[in-house]
């Protein structure tokens, strides 16, 4: 099957799915259909008088973004942005801290600084933040932060800025 034939067949998939949206009175969703769905050529088989071209269909589950230190590969942050939607303040704080702790794995030098709901994007999000203390002295700018959706009890983001303190005097 040529690329042009595969493209023509895929156009049928979108054509039919758009028709369904129109038929169900959901024409406003036509514009975002190809943002929400994905079709991938799966198999081609001759069947009777026809060739059956099968497309695997996918629905957008969620988006994810991550940042790493480009030099060392160390992970700096990860976020399932769309999973913050629908967050509420119904989860108790102990559970929120436990979930955040499991996901963020703060090292022994981490000191719990904040564990409370914050309004983000108009909804309450449970924020857990640890500061870095080395021998009792705060390490400026270092922190670990986790965001928990209070309705789904899912940890949806962890941000980490952390470094190992070298107490030896530097050349400066």
């Amino acid at each position, binding site marked *: *099957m*040529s690329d*042009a*034939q595969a493209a*023509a*067949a*895929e*156009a*049928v*998939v979108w*054509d*039919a*799915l*758009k*028709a*369904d949206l*129109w*038929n*169900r009175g959901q024409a406003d969703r036509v514009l975002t259909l190809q943002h929400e*769905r*994905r*079709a991938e050529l*799966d198999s081609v088989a*001759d069947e*009777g*008088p*026809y*060739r*059956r*071209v*099968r*497309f*695997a*269909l*996918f*629905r*957008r*589950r*969620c*988006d*994810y*973004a*991550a*940042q*790493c*230190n*480009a*030099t*060392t*590969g160390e*992970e*700096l942050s*990860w976020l*399932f942005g769309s*999973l913050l939607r629908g967050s509420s303040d119904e989860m108790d704080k102990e559970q929120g801290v436990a979930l955040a702790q499991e996901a963020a794995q703060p090292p022994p030098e981490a000191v719990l600084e904040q564990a409370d709901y914050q309004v983000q994007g108009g909804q309450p999000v449970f924020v857990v933040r640890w500061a870095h203390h080395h021998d009792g002295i705060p390490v400026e700018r270092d922190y670990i932060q986790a965001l928990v959706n209070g309705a789904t009890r*899912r940890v949806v983001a962890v941000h980490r*800025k952390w470094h190992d303190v070298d107490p030896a005097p530097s050349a400066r």
Partner: protein
Amino acid sequence: MPDTQALRQKVKDDCLRRAQALFPDDKLVAELAEPQSRWHPFLLRHVFAQSVVLWRRAGHFDVLVDPATGEPVGFENPDGWRECRWIPLAETDVLAMAARTAFVDGQAMAVASLEQGPRGCAEAVLQPRRDGQGVRPLRVRINPARRVLISIEPIGQGA
């Protein structure tokens, strides 16, 4: 220093591991966008940023193609059968619904028959309004409860 490909793979693996823990029943596929690399003025690090779209497998869709010409002649959407239940539909309604696809010209075709089909679907035969147009009759199946097209396929000897 890890190369871009290694960083992309690491992000993809971490993303899928976390997402699979959140959605254990889903069959997930990760689609990676073009990565970005920049100096971060607050982190004081050279930062590699990668965004990902996670897709979950949700069935399939079959397109029927004429092997001689490579042209699509119909389709079958198995998801159309979901919650299928018989509700009488008007012929005009059936024709209008089918005519929203490229296979049916609402002006050139007419409903020759409309009855309850398998599993409660509405099954219609559409025929050209005038003879000799070289247009073959079509069988159209619709899920009346959800108002979705289940299939459109040519009737008669194949393509």
